[in-house]
């Protein structure tokens, strides 16, 4: 049994590799991961809302939306669209997004006024003004992933999947 064990030198060299791998982790990666724990309370709140799922992404083909990795790669290579557009759909509401260089243009379908909120992984929430026909703008383009919640005049609330641009 003892023959199967690491020699002292092997053990030390393994420890050295373990410490090296730990040092290669960007410090912000662990900090951001720890900070995400506060998301739990928001997550609990969101599960009560209607979920709007990604149904269209101009940067991906249908197979990609179903998570087929190989098709995902092929789909992207043939992609030539200038602007990225995305659609998130729930039963009674769709949220259409178009990504430009300096912002994200949003449209609620059917058009209606509402309150839109941008939720970030660090649990920050930012209100976005929406006009009476359901247009809104996120400026600048969010650099981290986010979710949108829409509180509609009907009293219903809808939340999107995570959006990463």
């Amino acid at each position, binding site marked *: 049994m003892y023959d199967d*064990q690491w020699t002292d030198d092997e053990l*030390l060299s393994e420890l050295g590799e373990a410490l090296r791998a730990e040092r290669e982790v960007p410090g912000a990666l662990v900090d951001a991961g720890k900070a995400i724990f506060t998301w739990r309370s928001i997550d609990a709140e969101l599960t009560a809302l209607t979920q709007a799922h990604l149904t269209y992404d101009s940067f991906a083909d249908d197979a990609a939306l179903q998570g087929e990795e190989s098709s995902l790669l092929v789909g992207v290579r043939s992609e030539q669209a200038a602007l990225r557009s995305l659609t998130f759909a729930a039963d009674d509401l769709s949220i259409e997004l178009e990504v430009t260089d300096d912002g994200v243009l949003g449209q609620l379908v059917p058009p209606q006024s509402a309150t839109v909120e941008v939720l970030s992984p660090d649990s920050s929430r930012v209100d976005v003004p929406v006009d009476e026909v359901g247009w809104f703008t996120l400026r600048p383009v969010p650099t981290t992933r986010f979710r949108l919640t829409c509180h509609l005049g009907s009293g219903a609330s809808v939340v999107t999947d995570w959006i990463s641009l």
Partner: protein
Amino acid sequence: MTTVATAAQGGSHLVADLVARALQGDDRAWGALVARYAPLVTSVCRRHRLDEADTLDVAQGVWLSLLEHLGSIREPAALPGWIATTTRRECLHLLTGKGGRQRAELVGEVDGATIDLTEQLDDMIVQAERHAALLEALADLPPQHQQLVVLLIHDPPLAYAEIGRQLGMPIGSIGPTRQRCLEKIRNHPAVAALLESPARPAHR
């Protein structure tokens, strides 16, 4: 592949405990889970040639998924495998989504390496679990002994005289202390579980 499962056995008790405590709202337990799997997430991102900003983005997705799935983890030994495949999926999404057109060439490179990556994933999981077990054992040593181990693996190697000077230890006691430290690490439950597994990874 039995290697992955057996390698993960060692840390299962600790991980199961951390998951249970995190579910009860213990943010330190969550922090320990993040710290434990951060090297695995980082190494999978490196293999996909992501820069630091993209690595942080991918990691954020992985932690959010982990947080969502925390309550449905039945088998802690399967967690490293789940972390690795989730990271890989996030890497592919990022490479094809965000700025996909500009990255088409890079994606082409990654595509060519896809088969390799899948094969490497198991190795990366086994290695990450081995490292996690060793770091767990190291952290359980008294602080001065931890420092000794760190100096012993210093690159370039340090003479015992230098190590003794830094730690205020007589040179004659370094050898025996080194021996005791390594024995403690070897006998640590997390490490012992790795060593007992018949599928111990080969050494170079």
